[in-house]
């Protein structure tokens, strides 16, 4: 990991198209401004990681035969109608 120290208002460039500016510090929080072209996705790391993991889980769970998907729909309908019948 490259570690740089910046003063308020100073920036860092990543490649030719990305610039990160240190805008404000308040207690333990830092406000960063990021300039990047639209095709570059920028996210909080923990949410990016969460979505990635969920996608991977979804693919693993989807490794079933096509016919089983009909079973999933039936199973879901069953489950929902069972609850409806409860007094």
């Amino acid at each position, binding site marked *: 990991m490259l570690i740089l120290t910046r003063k308020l208002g100073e920036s860092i460039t990543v490649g030719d198209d990305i610039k990160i500016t240190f805008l404000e510090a308040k207690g333990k929080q830092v406000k960063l401004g990021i300039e990047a072209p*639209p*095709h570059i*996705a920028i*996210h909080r790391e923990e*949410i*990016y990681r*969460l*979505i*990635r*993991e*969920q*996608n*991977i*889980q*979804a*693919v693993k*769970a*989807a*490794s*079933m*035969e*096509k016919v089983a*998907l*009909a079973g*999933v*729909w039936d*199973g*879901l309908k069953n*489950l*929902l109608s069972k*609850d*409806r019948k*409860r*007094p």
Partner: protein
Amino acid sequence: MNIVTTRFGEIDIDESKIIDMRGGVLGFEHLKKYVLHMDDNNPFWWFQSLDDGTIAFVVINPYSAKADYEPMISDNDVKLLEIEESGDVVLLAIVTIRQNPFSVSVNLRAPLVINAKKKIAKQIILEDVTYPVQYYLTAMRTVNGVEDSERRDNCEATAP
């Protein structure tokens, strides 16, 4: 074109139906081309990779899961996806199906946004934290005498 898939064997793809995934699905950035297999009898569809026949996602129209779903699509993404009219946009949510115990969850936080006209798509991550990564369609607890949709809302898993 013909491709070989794990689930459907060898299939013939109508090239006009191929969707170009800009940026890919997170975790699968190397896979760019997909087709959507829809089934009239089932709200669950397949989003099949053409680059890797073994990879396919189960997807659903997110409005089937949450009728008042209102994802905000940024101007950046509208530009990237070359969206000209809102009618060109189709949304899909990735579904995770688990067994033992059986559960079905839908990712409302990171939908696939498709420009159906231009066949360009992207997975976007919404800013709105009220949309969970795991929105459960299956009841994890029983609730007596509660309307179906309200019960489903109560079952939303809160994203960490």
